[in-house]
Each structure stands twice: as structure tokens, then as C-alpha cells.
């Protein structure tokens, strides 16, 4: 019992790191321009398909698939910013919600049309199998995703707090007119923010594809978790998303194991709502 519980917690931490990884892009976009990107889950899905295409064309795993997915999604992010976001930002809140929601459906059904509704999968053990440490089973693919999650979180945090690019981006987020008067171009900053956020999301997708199935609707399955992670961590806070992801992963796993899998979502969401009651801005969000 005790031993299995340790395995459950370790598994929960790895799962949580993955949640954090694919939530960081969502929280970044929110922090930069107060836009909730409902197409976020489908960005993850595109990253997964990018990794799959790289594998089926060249037979290589995430070593090439992950950089490709990152670049591809960064490009998509810039296109989406100039083609859609810049325009709907001038409209009412509802237009923003419907705009990114429409984008989600467009991406989902384009992939559906091109790749079909079939479930795809990268070969098992594409990232070197499973480690057995004193009986604890740790999948290399999840460990890699977890490690990258920590690096991405750290990188984004340093970028925002320690670099002049980060300061400029935050300046635009706080007051774009004032930033403009200081010689910062809000458009470029926000396009860069979208490129970084979408790129991180594509990276997440490519890594998740190493242990998850790939299907056009997978963004729906994963998207909800991203929204919960981001609101628990505090919208706009990258370190918050990491802590929240880990928390949700562990609570989900432990409650699923101890009480039963059908009840785990009840536990997670009840705790989530209870927490927001006391701290509506999330763990590390701005009050």
C-alpha cells in the first residue's frame, strides 16, 4: 500500500509537470494581453501532429520533432496574432472569446480533414523506455517532459524578470500607450509574446506525443486541464502554473488511487473552487 502510494505520488508529480508544461503558453498570453486563448488545446494538438509528421517522414523522435514543433507553432503564433488577435483585441470581450474559439474549431477540423479521424501514436519507447529505481517505475518520456517543463518555466520567468525584452513586454502589458511613448512598439512585443507562448505550447505538444495518443480532438481532452492549471496558479503567472500543475497532478493521482478514478475530478474541482473562494487571483496571480 505505502509503496504503491509512493509510485502514485511520483507519477502524479510527473503528470503535474506535463500539465504545467502545456499551461505555460496559455498563462503567458493572458499575462501579456489579457486574452484567454481558447485555441490553446488545439495548439498542443498541432505540436503533437508536427512531431508525428517529423517521425513518419524522417524516422526521428523528439530530438528533431520538438524543435520543429516549437518553430512551427511560433510561426503559427505570429500569423494568428497578426491575422486574428490584433483585430479582435479592439472588439468587445465576447468577440475575443468567440474569435479564439472559432480558431480552435478551424484548426481541429483542418487537421481532421487532412489526417482523418484516426488515432495515431508514436512508437512506444521512442524516448528510451522506463527506468526502474528500487521498484519505482519512471517513464523516460515523462521524465523528459517534466525536466523540460522546469526548464521552460525557469526560462520564461528569467526572460520576463531579467531581460530588457521581458521588461518591454511587461511594459506593453501594463500600459501600451505609455510604452509606445517610451519607444516600444506594442505590436512587435505582442507578436513576440505570441510566438514565445505558441512555441512553448508546440514544444509541449511534441513531448506529450511521446506518451499520449494523437487525434484531432485531443486538444479538448487536454485543454480543460490547462485552464484549471492556469486559473489555480494565477492567470499570467508562469511559476504559478508550475506549482498548480504539480498540485493538480498529485491530487488527481492520489484521489484516483485512494477513492476511485470516477471521483478524482470531483475532488480536484471541489478543492479548486474552494481555493478560489479564498484566493480568487490564484496561487501567484496579481490581486
Amino acid at each position: 500500500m505505502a509503496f504503491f502510494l509512493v509510485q502514485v505520488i511520483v507519477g502524479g508529480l510527473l503528470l503535474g509537470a506535463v500539465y504545467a508544461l502545456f499551461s505555460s503558453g496559455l498563462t503567458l498570453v493572458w499575462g501579456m494581453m489579457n486574452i484567454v486563448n481558447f485555441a490553446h488545446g488545439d495548439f498542443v494538438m498541432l505540436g503533437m501532429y508536427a512531431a508525428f509528421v517529423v517521425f513518419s517522414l524522417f524516422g526521428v523522435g523528439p530530438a528533431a520533432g520538438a524543435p520543429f514543433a516549437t518553430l512551427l507553432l511560433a510561426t503559427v503564433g505570429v500569423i494568428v496574432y497578426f491575422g486574428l488577435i490584433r483585430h479582435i483585441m479592439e472588439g468587445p470581450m465576447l468577440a475575443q472569446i468567440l474569435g479564439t474559439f472559432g480558431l480552435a474549431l478551424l484548426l481541429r477540423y483542418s487537421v481532421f480533414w487532412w489526417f482523418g479521424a484516426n488515432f495515431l501514436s508514436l512508437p512506444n519507447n521512442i524516448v528510451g523506455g522506463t527506468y526502474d529505481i528500487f521498484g519505482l517505475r519512471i517513464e523516460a518520456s515523462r521524465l523528459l517532459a517534466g525536466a523540460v517543463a522546469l526548464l521552460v518555466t525557469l526560462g520564461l520567468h528569467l526572460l520576463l524578470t531579467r531581460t530588457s525584452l521581458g521588461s518591454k513586454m511587461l511594459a506593453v502589458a501594463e500600459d501600451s500607450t505609455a510604452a509606445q511613448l517610451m519607444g516600444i512598439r506594442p505590436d512587435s512585443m505582442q507578436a513576440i509574446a505570441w510566438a514565445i507562448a505558441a512555441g512553448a505550447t508546440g514544444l509541449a505538444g511534441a513531448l506529450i506525443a511521446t506518451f499520449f495518443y494523437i487525434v484531432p480532438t485531443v486538444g479538448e481532452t487536454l485543454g480543460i486541464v490547462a485552464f484549471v492549471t492556469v486559473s489555480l496558479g494565477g492567470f499570467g503567472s508562469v511559476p504559478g502554473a508550475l506549482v498548480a500543475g504539480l498540485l493538480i497532478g498529485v491530487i488527481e493521482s492520489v484521489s484516483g488511487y485512494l477513492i476511485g478514478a470516477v471521483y478524482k475530478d470531483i475532488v480536484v474541482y471541489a478543492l479548486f473552487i474552494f481555493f478560489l473562494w479564498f484566493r480568487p487571483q490564484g496561487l501567484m496571480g496579481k490581486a
Partner: protein
Amino acid sequence: MKFSNFLGLIGAAAILVGSASGTAAEDKVVKIGAVMPLSGGAASIGVHVKAAFDVVLDIVNNAHPELGNFPLAKSAGLAGLGGAKVEVLFADNQGSPATGQNQTLRLITEEKVVAITGAYQSGITLTSSAIAERYGIPYVNGESVAASLTERGFKWFFRTTPIASDFAKVFSDFLADMKAQGAKTDSIALVHDNTEYGTSVANTITATFKEKNLNIALDVAYGSNATDVQSQVLQLKERKPDVVIMISYTSDAILFAKTMQAQDYKPPILLADDAGYSDPDFIKAVGKISQGAFNRSSWSVGPSGSPSAIIADMYKKKSGVEMDDTVARQMTGLFVLLDAIDRAGSTEPAKIQAALKATDLKPDQLMIGYKGVKFDDKGQNILASGGIIQLQDGANYVSVWPKATADKAPVLPYKGW
């Protein structure tokens, strides 16, 4: 919604134009309606069934002497109606019971179909067949397993597939046989999602097993489309049941297979209830790490040169994927309906209904492993049956039980990877 209606109209128009040009030379065309999921979550089923019904029409409308005495194959068209050709009009149920109902109404009142088949999801078969019942149009269902469908006192509804209780009996008989051969079956775990399918099949199995004194030691329910199933697999690993019965759709089935490998967990016997485990996608994605999984099926390809093998080949050429149990059951439903129309020698609903009631097909007249087709007063095929197949090499299922029709002996224990 408006847009999809518009698309539906264009589709219907295309079908009408196609039928007008394709059959202008023939005197008589028998129109059958097919209500199927062509969009939505089950769209891949719709794609498969379209290819499958094309194969059925090819066999019926053209002469296929290579199929021997297989009904409707020898001559071109329906001999009972002077060689009339058959046409299937598809309607999209969009995965919604209300749409399925509307489309059935359209097929009957506007397209004037003489009979209907469909509608895959049990919940849609329920609403769509109610319309056919009201209009007095024969409805043959080949694939929906919810027991309630034939408990409504309908006069125009006929079902050829075995239902959940039949499968539960197949499972318990199979496990009894395995026990006789020395396998342990003392504790059984049920793993199922919380959809209508997962819960109703789990309940049926639980009830049947109780009667047979088989002990269900563990019931692992989970939410469908899970993001993670590690805790469920660890529950199984800790409790060590002798038999694990999996009732899951494709997405969760793939995730379970991957997680079982990651956690190095292999139940001695893994027995799946069709659904995800029969999906060609499942085999492609994780077949190699699910070697030795048992599954239920009424379909097996049979020796080469047999009608079932020839039909499977035609289907693979048409669709690009291997024939599976679901598609084979759907095709059988359509064959049974067309056989009845042929014997009726008429497209009058009452005569088709009478011919359906008189249906008495033998195993060698079917492309599937039923003991025959014969309907009871409720319209349920009393000779429907199934067997057990096993994914021995991780790439193709082979039939392993019952012994009389098996191609190979079952291999124990579950091998995994």
C-alpha cells in the same frame, strides 16, 4: 446548424443526381435508407460503413460466382424482383438522437425508401426506429447492443446482432473453459468508463457472472477520455486479479495499454469487450504491447476462398483498413434485409415485414459467425452468437474459442510486449 443542414441538402442533391444518372437504364431500383454517424465523434465508423455498404451493393448488384451459394451473389440484382438494382441512401445522424430521428423522417417521406438500416449508436437507433415504426417501414439493425431496443413491442424493428447479455454469457462460458484447462479465474476485475456503453455492459456482466458464481473482486470505473490512467493501473497491480475485463473506447484503451507497459503490469488474462480493442487504430498504435489480449467478436476471416475471406478482401481494397467485428455486423444486417426483400419479391413494406419474420438463414449463408438468423416475436435474432478472438502476434486477431470454430488454441498467460 444551418450550415450543416445546407451541407446535408447538397449531399442529398448529389446522391439524387448520382442515382438519376446511374440507374436511368434500369426499370426498378430498390432504395434503402442508412442512418449513420458521418460526422461527429464516431465519424470514422461512418467512413468505414460507407465502404462496407459499397461492397454489399457490389455483391448484390453484380454477378459474383466466386462467392458460391452466398445469398444474392450469383446473379446481378435481386432475382426475386426481376434483377432490380439496390441503392443505399446515406443520412448523417451527427451523433445526435434528434438528428437521427429527423433524417429517418426525411428518408421515409421524401426519399421514399422501402426500408431502413442503422443507426450505430444505441441511443440513436432508439429514436430513429420509432419513426420507422410509426410509418410502417421495416427497420433492420445490425450493430446496436442495448437490450432495451427489442423490448418495446415494435412490429417493424428487427435486430441481427448479439446483445450485451449474449456477450456476458460468452465471457462466462469462455472463462469456465479456461478454468477447466487450469487457468485461475477466482477473482475478476471490471474496468469500464462511465458512459452508457461502459456502465450498461459492466452491469450486464456483473449480473450474469453472479448467476454463474464468478467473483467480481474489483470494479474500476473511470471517466471516458481520461488524461491519465496510472492510478487505475496501480489499483489493478496491487490487487492482482486473475482476469481483467476491459470495457473501453479507443482513446482510453490506447492509454491503458501504454500505462500498463510503463508500470510493468500484466494481468494473467486480459479480456476486452470489443469497442476500442477492435478498432484498427488500437492495433496499429499499441497492438505490439497488447499481445495475447482476448476480445469478443462474431467476425473471423475464415479460410481463404471462403465467402467471408473474399468479402474481407473486397472491403480492405475499398477502405484501406482490415475488416473488424463492427463493420461485419453492419454488413450482415444489410444482407439480411436485402435477402428478405428478394424473397418478398416486392417492395411493399408489409410483404418485406412478412419475409423478415420468415427469415431462416443458416451459418453458411452468412459472412459472420452467427449460428444463423431467425427472429423471435420481439424482432431479436435468436441465433446471434459470438466467440473469442486473441491478438496473439500483436497485429491480427485469430479466433480461439469456441473450439469448434477456432483457428488456433488460446495462449495463456497474457504476454503484453
